[in-house]
Each structure stands twice: as structure tokens, then as C-alpha cells.
């Protein structure tokens, strides 16, 4: 018996993704009420690229270079034994002390909330930000923890067997967000 090929639907094409990011950049600025204490931290891997893009859009708008960082949460996961870590842990780079800053965590997909939980724990070890907010390109629902995003690029309803795939130009050669539905057999 052959399994039916998974069904792929485009959630965001390159232009829609660009528009979403533009809107997210504006919302980041609004919520932060300016750029003074703002720091964007991308979650490895694709969150780092998305944080970069948002920072560049803010720079174009405001003429201000927003400090950026990267965070790999692998070592803060709560499931080392069940999932196993990624082959190689990505870089964690925090631009200075976070105390008193407004940190915006940027990630590609918000699902169970466990990554965001781990990111909050990890950031707490780098200082005491005045505020931390969460900014995601896609919120696919299915939370297992009481966590929600402050800024969302696109909301979709995806089931437990579905996957949301985010491709970015810098790593994958093109911008695309797809929902991959697996047939329930």
C-alpha cells in the first residue's frame, strides 16, 4: 500500500511574507514605543534570519540600528531524552546585558509554546529585561503551555499531524511558508 503524498498548501508566498514582515516591524515599533531599549533576539535557526529582516525594516524606517542577537534553546529544552538534540547546537549571541531592555523574541512558528518557554528561561540567565515580547511569523495553534504571541504574521489552524514549513531566502534560496497536511490513514 502506498501512502498518499502529503498535501501542500501555500500559507505565505514571497510577497505575502514580505508584507507580513513589514507589518510585524511596524507593530514591534509601536509596542516598544520607539527604539531606545529595543533588542531583537532570533531563535535558531530561522528566527535569526527573520529577526535580521525585521531589524533592517526598522532601520529603513527609523534610521536606527536595532541591536540583534541569536539564541539557541537546545540546552534549555525539557525533552533531551525523548526528542534528542539537533545534531549541532547553533550559536547563542547576546548583545550585552539585557537588564532594563525591551527584548523581542523572534521565531518562525509558534506551536506548543515549549520553545518560547525555554527561550524565556535562557534569557533570564542573561539579565532582567524590563519586558520580553514574542513575535512569530506563523501561529499554528496547538499550545501545550500558557504562552501567547504579542505579534503574529499569520494565523493558521494546523492539526497535530500537520507541519508548517518556513523557507527563507538566506538559508533555503527562497521565501515560502507552506502547510503540509498528512492524510490520516
Amino acid at each position: 500500500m502506498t501512502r498518499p503524498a502529503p498535501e501542500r498548501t501555500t500559507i505565505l508566498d514571497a510577497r505575502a511574507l514580505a508584507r507580513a514582515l513589514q507589518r510585524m516591524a511596524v507593530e514591534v515599533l509601536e509596542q516598544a514605543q520607539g527604539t531606545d531599549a529595543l533588542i531583537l533576539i532570533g531563535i535558531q535557526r530561522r528566527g535569526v534570519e527573520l529577526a535580521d529582516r525585521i531589524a533592517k525594516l526598522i532601520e529603513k524606517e527609523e534610521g536606527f540600528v536595532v541591536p540583534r542577537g541569536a539564541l539557541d534553546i537546545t540546552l534549555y529544552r525539557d525533552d533531551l531524552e525523548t526528542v534528542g538534540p539537533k545534531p549541532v547546537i547553533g550559536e547563542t549571541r547576546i548583545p550585552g546585558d539585557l537588564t532594563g531592555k525591551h527584548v523581542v523574541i523572534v521565531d518562525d512558528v509558534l506551536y506548543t509554546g515549549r520553545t518560547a518557554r525555554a527561550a524565556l528561561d535562557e534569557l533570564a540567565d542573561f539579565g532582567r529585561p524590563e519586558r520580553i515580547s514574542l513575535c512569530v511569523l506563523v501561529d499554528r495553534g496547538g499550545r501545550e503551555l500558557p504562552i501567547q504571541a504579542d505579534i503574529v504574521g499569520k494565523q493558521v489552524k494546523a492539526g497535530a499531524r500537520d507541519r508548517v514549513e518556513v523557507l527563507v531566502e538566506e538559508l533555503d534560496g527562497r521565501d515560502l511558508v507552506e502547510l503540509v497536511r498528512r492524510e490520516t490513514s
Partner: protein
Amino acid sequence: MTALGKDLVGLEHLAPEQIRLILDTAEPFKEVSERPIKKVPALRGKTIVNLFFEASTRTRISFEFAEKRLSADTVNVAATGSSVSKGETLVDTAKNLEAMRIDMVVIRHGASGAAQFLGSRIRSNVINAGDGKHEHPTQALLDLLTIRDKHGKIEGLKVCLVGDILHSRVARSNIWGLTKLGAQVGVCGPRTLLPRGIEELGVTVFRRIEDAIAWADVLNVLRLQLERMEKGFIPSLREYYRVFGVTVERLERAPRDITIMHPGPMNRGVEIDSRVADGSHSVILDQVTNGVAVRMAVLYLLAGGRPELADAAKRGGGAE
């Protein structure tokens, strides 16, 4: 099973990609030690016993830092001297510890093969922190990482181990690791301290330190254990220094800058000149810094890291 198998006994049975995985995993752990809070929760709730049957300062402390920075709970057992010997007693000690529900044992032992012996008899992960004249894998791994940091690669480099190759587990682990990653390996030392048939491991033998210096990109200068003189392997320490000492004068004649390494503890003025040890080409303290990162990587991978390298583990034989 993890990407490395159950235990880390030595580099002899690891595949090149497993060695590279450890080095690549060590990379992000360097940064953890630079954080304001030098700790991540990856091994929270794991209990690790450091079982040191032989004296050690650097290696034990390095393992302990690595364990603590991963949030593991650690216990040090120094089973010194003659009361504890190998064989059943070693297993009994470990079985008793295991009955207290531990997860890992880091063992240093005077008998070659002790780590393997223990690993095959207990369920906990076993990490070899030096067994007799056999292997000292984490030392070789930190040496490899330091060489890669300094030169940007390992493949094609010429690395010469200098000194007491015969009794050195550091030399043995280095030879395995370096050759697996494509370096050319040389050894240099008095004939009495070179094992017979060492060429069969694919290394070049240098009888004179001057020839080794003319050839090498990296010199890894091994500690000359002082009791070797009493046992007649070398006539005197002063003569050893005169013939094999790594001195500024000798290095000045080298055709290129040579990276200087030493696993410690150093005998200044015996195998190495102080001005060389403290000189600008010395990476001896970088080795120590990298030691913590490499040990964190090994602990982390053995604890549950199941990256996509299962087939490499099978091919390489591994410890399990």
C-alpha cells in the same frame, strides 16, 4: 543508542564523523563558559560520579566544571593507592555506586582497559579520563579542537608528538584522532621511549628534535615523567633537555611558525623551555579552556544526544 554509543573509551573505535560531531558540538559550549551565569540546564537531574583511581588535578577539575555547567549533580570519589585494585573490586565499587542510581561514571585508572572493562559491566555511561597506557580520549579531543581553532583545519597539517610516546595514553589517543581526521602525525623522542612498531600506526619517526621542528606545523610536547629516569629510560633530565628540549633557539631555525601545545603538567626546563611555553605561539592555556567545552560536548552527547549519526556509530563500531 546515542551518536557515540554508551561509553567513550577511546578514539580508536570512533568514526571520523563521530569525532567531528564532538568537536562541532563543543563549539557552542565555549560560549556557555563566557556567560554571566555559566550554566545551562541540559543535564539537570543527572548524577555523575568522578571516579579517580589516579591523581589528577586538571582533568578532574575540568570534568567537574563541565558537569556543573550542564547542571548535573556530581560526586568525586578518589580511590587512592593500593587498597582498591582492578578487577572485581573496581566493578564492586561501581555497582555500589550504581545501586545509588547514578547516570554516568568518569573514570581514571592506572590499568589499561579499565574504562572498557567497567563500561561493559554497568548500565551507566562510562567516560574514560585516562586508563593506564591505553587512551585519554578527552585530552586528544581538546587537542584536536585547539589545533582546529588555531589553524582552521586539521586535515593536511603536520603534527609532531614529542617525548615519552611509549608510556603516553595522550600520544596514543592523539595519533588515532589526528590520523582519522587526515593530519600527518610525527613522533620524536629517545629510542627507549618510542614503542617498537609505531610506524605501523602510520606515523613518521624523528630521531632528532631538529628534524621534527623542520617538518612540523604543530608540536605537542608531552610531559616527561620524572620516574622514567630512575627506571633507566633516559640518562638524566639535563641531558634530555639538551637533546630533546623544545627551546627558543631550536624554534628560531624553523621554516615556519610552529604552534606549541602541552597537555600539562609541564616540567619547565625539562621537555620545554619556559620562554616557549609562555611564548606567542603557545596555545597551552587555550587547551585548558577548550577542555571544559569538549567535556561538556561528550557528556551532553552521551546523555541523550541522538543526532542523525546512528549509522556512523554502527560503522565505527563504537563502544556499543
